[in-house]
C-alpha cells in the first residue's frame, strides 16, 4: 500500500483507482536472469574423479557429447604416497587397469592427469602432521618424486592434493613441488597443485600458509584453488561463489605481486553435497540427496546462493540438513563467474565427478557459446 499512498499523495486525487488492483508484488517464484544474460564464458574445464577408475555411469557421462563439449581434462585422484617412499597403487594389476583407463579417456579426447592425494593408509583421511614429517625428509621426497615421475607414462601430468598441513611445512612443501617439477622435466609432464582457498594473509584457512603461492606458481603449470567446503560443521552451502572469486583473486594478486603475471589458476565447484547432522557431516551424491528428500517426504528449497537444501528427521529422531548442488546451481555459478569478474584464463575444476545431477553437463553445454 505504500506505493499507492505515494501516488495518491502526489496526485492529490484518487486517479489511480484501477492501479490499486495491481498492487505490485512477487509471484513467489524465481527467474534466472543470469541465464538470459548471455552464454557462460568458455573456460578450461577439468573434472576430478575420486579413484583410479571410472564406473559405468561415469563412462556413459564422459562419452556424452555434452560432457565432451564442456570438459577438456580429467584428473583421476588416484595416487597416494606411502611412508616408504613408494606410490600406491603399486601392484601390476592396478597399474595395468589404470593405464587402460587413461587410454580409454584419451580415446574420448580428454587430457588425463593423475592426482596425488596425500592421504594416510585408510585412503580417505588426511594427516597433515604425518605428511609434513614425510615432506621434511629429503630422502623421502627424492624417492616419491622418482616414483611419480616413473608412474603411468601415458598420463599427461600430475596434480597434488595436500591438505591439513601445518603452516611450518611451507618450505618442505615448496621444495617437494619444485623437485618434482624438475624430475618430470625429461618426460615433458607438468605438475599442478590444489591450494587452500585463502582470502587474506596471514591465511584465514587453517594450513593455508603452508602454501607459498609465488614459489609454487613458478614451478607448476596451474594453481588450482580448492574453493570447496565453504561450510564445515554447520549446515550451509559447499560453495559460495563470491567467496570463491575472492580466493582466486587473492592467489592471483599474491603471485602477481611477486612478479609472475602469467600463472594460470582454476576455481573449483562441487558436484556433490553434504548431509549435516549432530555436528558431523558426510558427503552425498545428487541422487542420494534427492532420494533422501523422497524417502522422508521433504521438498528441497533453493538457498540464497542457488543450492538445494532439505531438512529431515531420520528414524532415530536425528535431524539432518542436506545441502547439495544441482544443474541449476552449478550453471548459476558459472554464469556468475563472468569475464568481468574472473579473467577467461581462469579455469574451472568440477570436483566429485559421478556425484552430479545427471542434467549438469547438458545444462552447462547448452549455456556455452
Amino acid at each position, binding site marked *: 500500500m505504500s*506505493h499507492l499512498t*505515494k*501516488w495518491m499523495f*502526489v*496526485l*492529490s*486525487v484518487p*486517479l*489511480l*483507482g*484501477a*492501479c490499486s*488492483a*495491481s498492487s*505490485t*508484488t*512477487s*509471484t513467489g*517464484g*524465481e*527467474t*534466472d*536472469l*543470469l541465464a538470459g*544474460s548471455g552464454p557462460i564464458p568458455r573456460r578450461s574445464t577439468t573434472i576430478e574423479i575420486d579413484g583410479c577408475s571410472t564406473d559405468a555411469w561415469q563412462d556413459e557421462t564422459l562419452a556424452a557429447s555434452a560432457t565432451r563439449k564442456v570438459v577438456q581434462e580429467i584428473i583421476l585422484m588416484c595416487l597416494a604416497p606411502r611412508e616408504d617412499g613408494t606410490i600406491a597403487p603399486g601392484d601390476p594389476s592396478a597399474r595395468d587397469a589404470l593405464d587402460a583407463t587413461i587410454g580409454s579417456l584419451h580415446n574420448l579426447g580428454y587430457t588425463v592427469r593423475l592426482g596425488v592425494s596425500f592421504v594416510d593408509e585408510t585412503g580417505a583421511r588426511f594427516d597433515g602432521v604425518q605428511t609434513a614429517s614425510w615432506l621434511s625428509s629429503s630422502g623421502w621426497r627424492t624417492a616419491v618424486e622418482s616414483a611419480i615421475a616413473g608412474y603411468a607414462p601415458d598420463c599427461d601430468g600430475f596434480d597434488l592434493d595436500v591438505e591439513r598441513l601445518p603452516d611450518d611445512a611451507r618450505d618442505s612443501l615448496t621444495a617437494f613441488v619444485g623437485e618434482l617439477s624438475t624430475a618430470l622435466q625429461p618426460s615433458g609432464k607438468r605438475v599442478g597443485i590444489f591450494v587452500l582457498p585463502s*582470502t587474506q594473509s596471514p591465511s584465514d584457512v587453517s594450513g593455508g600458509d603452508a602454501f607459498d603461492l609465488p614459489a609454487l606458481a613458478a614451478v607448476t603449470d596451474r594453481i588450482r584453488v580448492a574453493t570447496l567446503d*565453504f*561450510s564445515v560443521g554447520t*549446515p*550451509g*552451502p559447499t560453495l*559460495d*561463489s*563470491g*567467496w*570463491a*572469486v*575472492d580466493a582466486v583473486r587473492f592467489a592471483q594478486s599474491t603471485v602477481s605481486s611477486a612478479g609472475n603475471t602469467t600463472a594460470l589458476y582454476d576455481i573449483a565447484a562441487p558436484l556433490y553435497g553434504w548431509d549435516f547432522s549432530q555436528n558431523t557431516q558426510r558427503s552425498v551424491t545428487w541422487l542420494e540427496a534427492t532420494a533422501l528428500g523422497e524417502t522422508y517426504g521433504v521438498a528441497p528449497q533453493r*538457498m*540464497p*546462493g*542457488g543450492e538445494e537444501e532439505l531438512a529431515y528427521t531420520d528414524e532415530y529422531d536425528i535431524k539432518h540438513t542436506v545441502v547439495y548442488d544441482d544443474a541449476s546451481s552449478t550453471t*548459476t*555459478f558459472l*554464469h*556468475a*563467474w*563472468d569475464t*568481468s*569478474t*574472473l579473467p577467461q584464463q581462469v579455469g574451472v575444476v568440477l570436483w566429485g565427478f559421478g556425484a552430479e545431477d545427471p542434467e549438469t553437463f547438458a545444462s552447462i553445454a547448452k549455456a556455452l557459446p
Partner: protein
Amino acid sequence: MRAAVALVAAAAVVTALTATTAARADGVDAYFQAGAGATMVPGNDLHVGSATSVGARQVSGSLRVPSNTFYASAEIGFGLQTKHVVIPVLSLGTSSSVGLYDEQRSSIDGSIAHIRPWTGDLYDFGFGGLGYRTNYRRWTFAATGRFGVTYETMGADAAYGSSTYDLEPAQWFAYVRLDVEACRRLDPLERICLVASPNVFAFDQTFHGGMLSFRYELGK
C-alpha cells in the same frame, strides 16, 4: 508476466488529470499540469556503491535489472507556451513498479544476487525542452522533446553462505523523451488527450521504453 501486462494495460487507461491555464493565442502563458500513466522501462544496469558488505565480502559494480519492468507514473510540471510553441520548464515525476514479478537471480562481483522488480521506483526531474503545437478544428496536436534525469532504485540482495545481505542498487540516467499528443476538444473548456512518450534516449539506450497515458485537460 501476463498478469503484469494486463495490469499495466489497465494502468495505461487510467485517466490523468491535467489542469492548465488558458493559453492566449496572442502571447506567452505559463501552464501547470499533473498527469499519470504507465511507463515501460527497458533492462538496464544499476550501480551498487563501493564497499557494500556482503558477508565477509565487499562488493561493488553493476547489477543487471530485468528488461521491461512496468511502472505506474505520476508527474507534475509547468512550462510556457504560445499558440505554436511549447517550452517545458520543470517537471517532477515519480513511478512505482506495477505487476506481478518473479524474483530475478543475478550476480554482482561473483556473488549471487536477487532482484525484486516489484520494489522498483523511478524519480524523474525534467528541466527543459521544446515543442510545437497546432490546432485543426477540434483537435490539437503537439510534439515536444523533453530532457532531464531519472533516478532508479530497486530492491535487491546478495548471498553469502546461507544468508542474504541487502544491496541498494541505484543509478542516475539522463533522458530525452518525445511527447506526441493528440487532444480532442470536448467542449470549450475540456479536452481529452492521448499522449505517447517514447524514450529517444533513456536508461543508456536509444528508442527503448516510454510512457503512454490518457490526459484530461481543463482550460481554454
